[in-house]
């Protein structure tokens, strides 16, 4: 009891700013990633159901996790990413889904659902919303100029991880994701290690790879790179596939002469999947289920997919999506790429700590 009271107060202190306005009645509180839905989806849902939606956004799993683990977030739907979701399920913060109320669940791609069981056993707690990759993007012209006579490597990851390539790209700007959990597993995968390893040596090796190329990394950035890639001040970026495609589109719209390419390396990429889940203490469970069911409608899923340019797990929606998206491997990685790719699973606390520690060494060059 005592413990519980302390939690309530601590939650109040930590999350006082984010208590949603509506708690009861025909309301629904959604907490989703920013720019992660078609502009009229919520409006249409409200019109059809009469449910009033409060829609808040976040831009990092860490922020979501801090809120959701504190408890009493006040949200009815949140959209965490695989490894975070797995850990949060384990922490017992979500409730199992009543699939009887999710008639459109059948529209989901069984292959994707099978992937999802890696972090949500039996698909009991979460409904896949979008999936995508972390990959590389290049400024084709600048990279070509910087490399000179050297051709692009067969394994496109060599651009980042082989000093002979990346050292030449330093002058036109190299940026990598500023997150140990996003960056180090890619190095592990490149080295042929298990990207979900709990062995210290694997992470030491991955960090050492980054340390070798550290002198050539000009930026550590998890969002700021979009603009800089689009305006030509970066030429090699390790980033989120969707963001890289946004940069590419911006450069095309700006007609600034920067030709960007989002790569989909054949040797595999890091896959991720965001899924909708309902917190245990949600107050509007039925409304949450209604919304989840609504976004699984083929036409709604297709509209969302077009708006955000990530891959939809909704098989029934694919018929309404243009081929230029469906056949862009940086959005919908091919089966071949997917087979060589990996998806992140939760690590032990000590491994997570080691990753963070090593990443600090990489960044501070110590």
């Amino acid at each position: 009891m005592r413990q519980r009271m302390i939690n309530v107060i601590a939650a109040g202190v930590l999350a006082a700013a984010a208590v949603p306005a509506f708690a009861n009645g025909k309301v629904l509180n959604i907490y989703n990633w920013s720019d992660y839905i078609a502009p009229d989806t919520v409006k249409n849902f409200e019109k059809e159901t009469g449910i009033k939606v409060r829609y808040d956004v976040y831009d990092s799993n860490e922020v979501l996790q801090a809120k959701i683990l504190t408890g009493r977030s006040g949200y009815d739907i949140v959209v965490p990413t695989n490894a975070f979701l797995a850990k949060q399920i384990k922490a017992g913060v979500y409730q199992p889904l009543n699939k009887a109320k999710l008639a459109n669940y059948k529209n989901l791609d069984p292959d994707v659902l099978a992937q999802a069981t890696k972090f949500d056993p039996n698909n009991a707690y979460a409904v896949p919303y979008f999936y995508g990759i972390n990959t590389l993007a290049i400024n084709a012209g600048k990279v070509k100029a910087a490399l000179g006579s050297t051709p692009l490597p067969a394994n496109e990851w060599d651009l980042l991880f082989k000093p002979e390539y990346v050292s030449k790209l330093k002058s036109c700007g190299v940026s990598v994701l500023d997150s140990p959990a996003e960056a180090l597993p890619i190095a592990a995968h490149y080295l042929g290690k298990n990207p979900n390893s709990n062995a210290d040596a694997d992470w030491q090796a991955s960090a050492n790879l980054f340390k070798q190329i550290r002198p050539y990394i000009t930026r550590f950035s998890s969002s700021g790179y979009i603009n800089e890639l689009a305006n030509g001040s970066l030429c090699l970026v390790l980033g989120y596939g969707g963001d890289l495609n946004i940069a590419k589109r911006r450069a095309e719209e700006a007609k600034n002469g920067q030709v960007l390419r989002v790569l989909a390396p054949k040797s595999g990429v890091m896959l991720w999947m965001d899924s909708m889940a309902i917190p245990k203490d949600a107050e509007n469970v039925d409304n949450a289920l209604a919304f989840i069911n609504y976004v699984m409608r083929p036409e709604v899923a297709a509209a969302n997919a077009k708006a955000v340019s990530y891959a939809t797990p909704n098989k029934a929606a694919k018929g309404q999506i243009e081929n230029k998206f469906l056949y862009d491997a940086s959005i919908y990685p091919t089966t071949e790429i997917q087979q060589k790719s990996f998806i992140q699973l939760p690590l032990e606390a000590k491994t997570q700590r080691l990753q963070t520690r090593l990443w600090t060494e990489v960044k501070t060059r110590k």
Partner: protein
Amino acid sequence: MMSRLLSLRDSRAAAARPARRSAWWQRALPRGQSLVTAIPYGWLLLFFLVPFLFVLQISFSDVEIASPPYRALLSRAEDVVSLALNFGNYRYIFGDPLYFDAYLSSLYMAGVTTLICLVVGYPIAYTIARAPEAKRNTLLMLVMLPFWTSFLVRVYAWMGILDNEGLLNQALLALGLIDEPLQLMHTQLSVQIVMVYAYLPFMILPLFSNLVKLDGRLLEASADLGCRPWQTFLRVTLPLSKNGVIAGSMLVFIPAVGEFVIPELVGTPESLMIGKVLWMEFFDNNNWPMAASVTIVMVALLIAPIIYLHKREEKALARAAAR
């Protein structure tokens, strides 16, 4: 404190009927003066001490995959309450040079920021304090004006100025003073510039309120006794503004030590400040106990010199009174 608040509430109910003799609640009711002094204490208790104790408690805990993600200190099994204190977090902090380095670089950064703010802010505060009264409010308004905009927006504005394609570089290029853009963003210099900018008002305001009280006749007396203006400044103005200097320096130094946003947005990846370490512990590692421990050590580092200064001041007063 608690009983005082309770008795206050009771007194309101009782106030309806006239009190002929001094009732128990009247005796318990704080007098006006002690009530007023109770307000800051109550404030500190509620918004500093209580949260601090929560954090302290968490710092002796251990990570757990749960909500909240740490183990309770007190556990009850078959009517036996057991207390489990985990000192591992502190051992870790003192065992890994990363934390020492981060504390050191934060203290260094905050120290340099404080020093620059003092050197820049003192003449500004002095000028405002010596300005005619009609002008003074306008000048003070100008100092406080930036607070009307969000702090984040102001930091972003600096990014727009210091960037390679930013205003400053473009101006210098246009003037022909440089041939290629200077690397200003994402350097220690840029962090320093923005920190000084952000914290300067916190130095100026207490200095101003101190200097404005400075008796002009003391300056005349000093001149009369043979001091040139700069000697008067060193021998009279500066020592008399000591309290303003201390207050301003504290107001700058303490938040600057924990500054996270500025190094994150305009800093270099090489420099690791304690604010970032805290962020990493809390968010990357999801390790609340460790984050709490880092905080406790930081608070201890900040409070120790304050207590030392306070004690010294008290001793000096006692010594003066003894004479």
